[in-house]
């Protein structure tokens, strides 16, 4: 197995995630896209650590951070979603478009 293979897989995950983030109307689905994107990042970080710099621990810490960030962002995201749902009964980004121009 080599770095390139891992990276191509990671790139595929990132692209799929990006596609989801760009296309999903539902806020939660959009967040899923971002999760998937981070999924690719985790893979990339692991690959970089393993194939390029196994002596250090930054790659591992990076994965820890990504996982934590996912949790934090999810929590924040659900909180925001809850708030906007309470306020406007909206769960789609397209409906939240009063502010513009």
């Amino acid at each position, binding site marked *: 197995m080599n770095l390139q293979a891992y990276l191509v897989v990671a790139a595929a995950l990132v692209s799929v995630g990006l596609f989801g983030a760009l296309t999903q109307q539902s806020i939660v689905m959009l967040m899923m896209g971002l999760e998937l994107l981070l999924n690719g990042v985790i893979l*990339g970080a692991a690959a970089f650590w393993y194939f390029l710099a196994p002596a250090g621990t930054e790659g591992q810490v990076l994965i820890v951070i990504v996982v934590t960030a996912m949790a934090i962002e999810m929590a924040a995201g659900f909180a925001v979603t809850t708030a906007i749902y309470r306020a406007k009964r909206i769960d789609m980004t397209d409906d939240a478009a009063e502010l513009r121009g």
Partner: protein
Amino acid sequence: MVMMNEDPATLIPELALLAGAVLAVLVGAWTPRRRQGRVRVLALVAVGVGLIGTITAATKPPSTTFDTYVLDTTTHAVRAIVLVSVALILWWSRDAVAAHPRESEFTALVLLGGLGAVLMAGAADLLLLFAAFLLASVPLYALAGWAKSGATTEAALKYYLSGAFAGVTMLAGTTLLYGAAGTTGYDTLPEGLATGAAGPAAVGLVAVLAGLAFKAGAVPAHFWVPDVTDGTPPPVAAVLTTIPKIGALAAMWRLLLDVPEDIVPWPLLIAVIAAVSMSLGNLAAFSQSSVLRLLAYSTVSQVGYVLIIIAVGARTPEAQPALLFYLAAYALTNIGAFAAVAAHPARTVDEFRGLGRRRPLLAIALVVSLLGLVGTPPTAVFVGKLTAFTAAFDGGMAWLAVLAAVNTVASLFYYLRWIAPLFRDESPEPADESSESRTARHGAVTAATLSLVLGVAAGLILPLFAAS
């Protein structure tokens, strides 16, 4: 092996902000609704402690603490600017938040956001930078939705989603940079990049910059700025458009100076972002009638001017004092402008008619702030712009200075579009006195005065910022 090799005392300002936030939440939980003012007092004490800590720390030679955190002029300056900004906003937002059920939380979130901004500025490791980015973002998402009305939640949603996207991009960038350099510490970055792959480094750097650009509100990550500014109450908008910007721009500065120009040609990239930011911000502000959106776009263009300094950061020693001074000047002036908006129920340019007669002091403060944003002597932003132009000129990017000058002239038009009605005759319907905010008015006057003082005293301040 596992040793506390560093002294937490070096982080007094940060710890003070943290303690202030924690105490705000704790004390707030046991405070009657109408007496939450004590929480603000507590926060202001914390800020005061932080300021004292900053001043004490600034007298010591630059050092690195916890391996990943740099204590130098930049950090100290950002600490001071953020602390003063936080204090100012907390003070003048009193009328807007007093006795609100979530007043304590407001205070805590502002303090936490400030802490995140400071940590970004001091971070000398990509991982810490991202952690600080998160800390600078999450409380502010909540802050954006703090008022929980329709518009503010929409603002919070957009802010959050933009931030999440930016954060993800930034993480991807961090990963790429890590892959390219094999390290995440700034001190080892240059040598790592020297032996690593340039292409991934460049893409990674751009992705990391995307996150920072989001915090700073620079093009093309600026989309949240007008919508969020428009949708949130002015005190919140003031926080969102001021505090994270300072940290993000300082962080950008610190990161880029450790990336060798010959491996990743970032000055031109930054110059492009700067050029587009200031031009787009100004153009979009042209025919705005909503003052909040107008201010929002103006902050976008202001970021463009700051980015000019960063673009030539590695080329001229004038850049550092220019950057820090500009940040300080921008913070004060911008806060003043938002305070002036907060002081008055008007939200469109026309509604400001006759303010000059009704509230002359407020009108003057607003004029000083707006002309300050234009860069009229002797306001602080003038010195900031002057140093920026000088840095650009001496750094071999004269075209950027010229573009900035053109933009400055253009910007005068929309600022004047706002200033002019202030001194026209009043609108027929009487003003609703009850919806005016006294503290915000005082805040506007104070901030405007401070921006003038900062401009006049620039001779004393600039050398302080020049120290390494």
